[in-house]
């Protein structure tokens, strides 16, 4: 676009300066430092550093504990994406019906947008607590026994997934509702005149037209499992039991701030960074919408 321009050699730089300085000092510099730190080993509680080459990366590559951490992250991300997006899309389609009070229903469905992972974690922690949690009372009634949600590895992972799906509902529904409003009803009508049944209309028309949004949400939900999930894990399970919910970001945090293995933690940061770069590249390639709605 050939927008009319103002003249001035220094003025545009002046306008951009605050942003550029902040990004340079508080984003680029720490990222570069992270790469540098990942080649060092820190000893004596962070008092001495020693160049270690690729040692930190080799350690991670050989550490079965770290492999487990990556696996846990993949499992949680996959479940959050599949369960969360399916539920969100179903709810969004229901809320998209022409019905009296539709806007009230919408508000009542999208408010979890404002929830934080720690708050979601706290409420779920209480509901699923052994002994007095309300969920255990229900399982006691229905299946005659209590389930140890925080002590059993599989149940703990399930708990993290359920709380995450709940927390992400609002965000996913907001975006799906917006996308559904762009679905052309004429196409749907044409499809039903051509004899398509409900399921075919959904799959061939609605779902196909929504696929860019589904892809966008796929990426943001994966990103959630990489980073934002930290607060929930820290509150609900602290990575346990037996590291069952020890996702990559939680493992990184513990190595950095509980065991003071700065180099090892930085190497994990670099791995996460590369994963984000790959995800972002895929996103840029496949869609024009390139805004990350986080910070």
């Amino acid at each position, binding site marked *: *676009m050939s927008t*009319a*321009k*103002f003249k001035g050699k220094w003025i545009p730089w002046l306008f951009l300066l*605050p942003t550029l300085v902040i990004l340079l000092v508080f984003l680029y510099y720490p990222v570069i430092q992270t790469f540098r730190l990942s080649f060092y080993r820190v000893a004596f509680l962070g008092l001495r550093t020693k160049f270690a080459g690729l040692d930190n990366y080799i350690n991670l590559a050989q550490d079965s504990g770290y492999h487990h951490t990556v696996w846990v992250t993949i499992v949680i991300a996959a479940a959050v994406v599949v369960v969360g997006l399916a539920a969100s899309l179903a709810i969004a389609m229901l809320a998209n019906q022409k019905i009296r009070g539709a806007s009230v229903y919408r508000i009542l469905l999208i408010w979890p947008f404002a929830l934080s992972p720690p708050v979601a974690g706290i409420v779920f922690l209480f509901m699923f607590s052994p002994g007095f949690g309300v969920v255990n009372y229900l399982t006691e009634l229905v299946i005659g026994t209590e389930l140890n949600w925080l002590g059993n590895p599989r149940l703990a992972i399930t708990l993290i997934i359920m709380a995450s799906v709940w927390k992400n509902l609002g965000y996913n529904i*907001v975006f799906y509702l917006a996308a559904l409003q762009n679905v052309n009803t004429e196409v749907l009508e044409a499809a039903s005149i051509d004899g398509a049944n409900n399921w075919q209309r959904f799959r061939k028309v609605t779902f196909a037209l929504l696929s860019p949004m589904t892809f966008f949400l796929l990426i943001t939900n994966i990103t959630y499992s990489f980073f934002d999930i930290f607060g929930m894990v820290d509150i609900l399970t602290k990575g346990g039991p037996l590291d069952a919910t020890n996702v990559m970001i939680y493992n*990184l945090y513990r190595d950095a701030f509980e065991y003071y293995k700065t180099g090892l933690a930085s190497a994990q940061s670099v791995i996460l960074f590369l994963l984000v770069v790959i995800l972002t590249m895929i996103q840029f390639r496949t869609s024009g919408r390139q805004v*990350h709605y986080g910070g």
Partner: protein
Amino acid sequence: MSLSISRNTRKQLLTHIALIFVVLVVLAPVLFALAKSTQTRAEVYHFPPMLGPGSAGLLNYKIVWHQFDLGLYMKNTLIVAGIVMFFKTIFSMTAGLGLVYFDFPFKEFIFYFILFTLMMPTEIMIVALFNLVSDLGWGDSYAALSVPFLASATGVFLFRQHFSSIPADLADAARVDGAGPMRFLWSILVPMSWNTIAALALIQFIYMWNQYIWPLVIIRENDRQLIQVGLRALTNQQDTTNWGYVMAAAILAMIPPMLIFILLHEQFTKGFALGKEK
């Protein structure tokens, strides 16, 4: 009553029932927390569980507000969120102005320089950022909590996208009138940007209100702690925890972002141009 109407009504009724059911399921954890936040300790641990309002009224709220410093944490978080919202809006707006209404060398480079920061969430550089901010001597200060977040690609691109959609004649007319870029920004762009400003304010507020890992590692003094980490302290005394207090605190912590979201979610949809394909 004709057949088609009754079928239609029945479908409407079923949709209402389905929606009410889903709304209740989604709300259930919060309703549960709300009920427990009004119960006394004995009521909280009562068996079978009591799911209605308890007899403690607002007592738990008063106790967490005063004795467990919830008021302090919320004040700190409001201050930090306010600083970030204010400066980030201004910085993003002027950056958008520079990118859209000026030509200058290395413009493309600058564009990508900003764009790439989308791939750099705080968590990725948490160790190095911790070292940097500690070396600056900012530990336990509002500066540590706000300055690293005063600029973002999201903000810049939101305004850049919005300004690009404003007709070019406007800038021309302003220039003919002899207005400089600051006047142009203030008297033409700002009045046309309220949806974008509101959208950015909303995501910034929620983003800052929900900050967790950064205050957890950088803040040692309770006096400067933010709300989410404050909640963590409440749950950490597991054995002695009074869950009535914890639920009251969780409800309090939900209120401000929820209010802002309900107030601004329509502007958010418009500001992100979600309503229309481009």
